[in-house]
């Protein structure tokens, strides 16, 4: 059995205790709500996209340490980046979680994307039940991104 230290890394607990970019953004910012039907956790992602750049992001909702820290780190990682870079980051993160969607696999340019602190969530893969916790914010981000770029 993998040890809890693989899961609850200090940086994860830090983001859990002190989540970054908590709050809401008023319209016209995009807003998506993600649900984890297994546990009832909910996450709100607010995304402000100006031109081609994610200029602001806020996260709301409730969840476990893994879903909350993942959301917090995600918010830091996407802010100020281009929409394409954010999409690449989502692919990279899901790849780390062993999730590859059809036609959404890693592309060559993704090699340059750095996950940084998010790599701390790598241990989640050893606890398959928790992968859904880690990816909840990212799936919600994808929805918010689709809304923001469809307008």
């Amino acid at each position: 059995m993998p040890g809890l230290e693989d899961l609850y890394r200090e940086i994860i607990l830090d983001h859990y205790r002190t989540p970054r970019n908590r709050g809401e953004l008023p319209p016209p910012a995009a807003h998506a709500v993600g649900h984890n039907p297994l546990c009832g956790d909910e996450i709100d992602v607010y995304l402000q996209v100006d031109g081609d750049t994610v200029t602001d992001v806020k996260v709301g909702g409730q969840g476990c340490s893994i879903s909350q820290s993942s959301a917090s780190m995600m918010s830091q990682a996407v802010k100020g980046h281009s929409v394409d870079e954010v999409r690449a980051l989502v692919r990279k993160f899901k790849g780390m979680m062993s999730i590859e969607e059809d036609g959404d696999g890693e592309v060559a340019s993704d090699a340059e994307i750095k996950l940084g602190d998010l790599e701390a969530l790598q241990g989640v893969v050893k606890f398959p039940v928790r992968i859904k916790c880690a990816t909840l914010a990212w799936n919600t981000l994808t929805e918010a991104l689709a809304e923001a770029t469809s307008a």
Partner: protein
Amino acid sequence: MSLDVAAIREQFPLLQRQINGQPLVYLDSANTSQKPRSVIDAMTRFMETSYAPINRSAYQLAAEATDAYEDARKATQRFINAPHAHELIFTKNATEALNLVAYSWGRANLHDGDVVVLTQMEHHANIVPWHMLASERHIELRWVPLTIDGLLDLTDLDSLLDGAKAFCFTAMSNVLGTINPVRQLCDAAHKAGAVAIVDGCQYVPHNVTDVQAWDADFVGFSSHKMCGPSGIGVLWGREALLDAMPPFLGGGNMILDVRLDGFTPAELPAKFEAGTPPIVEAIGLHAAIDFLEDLGMANVRRHEMDIATYAMTTLVDRYGDDICLHGPGNVEVRGATFSFGFRNIHPHDLSQVLDQRNICLRAGHHCAKPLMRLLGVNATARASFYLYNDEHDVDALTDALDGASDIFGL
């Protein structure tokens, strides 16, 4: 404790299993229960010696299998003191039993403007089928609220039931552990002219059940929560109601005649048992009922009241306000199922940490999201105790909670 738990545990092969050299502390029986050797052996023996189709073939083996299947129905009838064996329908589980009622009785008897009363402590299995029906035709759903202690608030019951056609409620909450006053609720339903539909899934495995003393109209429950196999559940309903209902699933076994221009349904219970039923599972359910009857359901209930008392005392003594136990504090009106919050640690994280000590409990919304919203939480941890648990399991849980605090620094 009223039961010899050490002797009982010896009869459960799975409870002998160790993970990482440590024994299991199985506290998830409200989810599903473990199986005694007698159930496993009965199913194996049946498959090795007597397995055959039921109700359709003339050879001796098939006759034996049919008898064994019908014996399981009679055992179930006795277990809940139903008037007639043919009033018991074998389903897939309690969920299917409740869906059968909503689909068949509901579609035949509920029309635009009719009222169905539910409670705010229902499992999704006793909510969603009614929502599904309400989305097809204009049916009003009313909800019995809860008190702060997690009991049904019956103050306005009569006005809620005024004009209602059905009152659907759980006999015991899978989240709060609350045991509801079933007879009183059935009486109130009947006084209003409503049919009383009881979700017995959590109650039947833990208590003496007497559907006639309840004066209920329908009762559903599952085998897998009462030491029997998964894959079989039970619907009991009054003969007159079942007779007047249209079939639920169509297929083999449920017909008297099929013609090019239509069909004639079979008599009860075959009318509601389309296709090959869970034959082996019925044999297992029979063995589970024998096992429970040997222990005595009154003894099981007493044992669980002892554990509930010990658990509440131990957890509150040790943790005080750091632990939030949902549901009633009085063991007379609760079973040994405890949903709780602990020091702001998310239930998922809590269960992950407890898993390191082989403590198996459920974290989540327990298929009762309306109740979760009422409690103001997304999720709870839930420890549920059964006849193979004792104070050692409570102690193991209590000790392990401290470990969770260490990790999260709370």
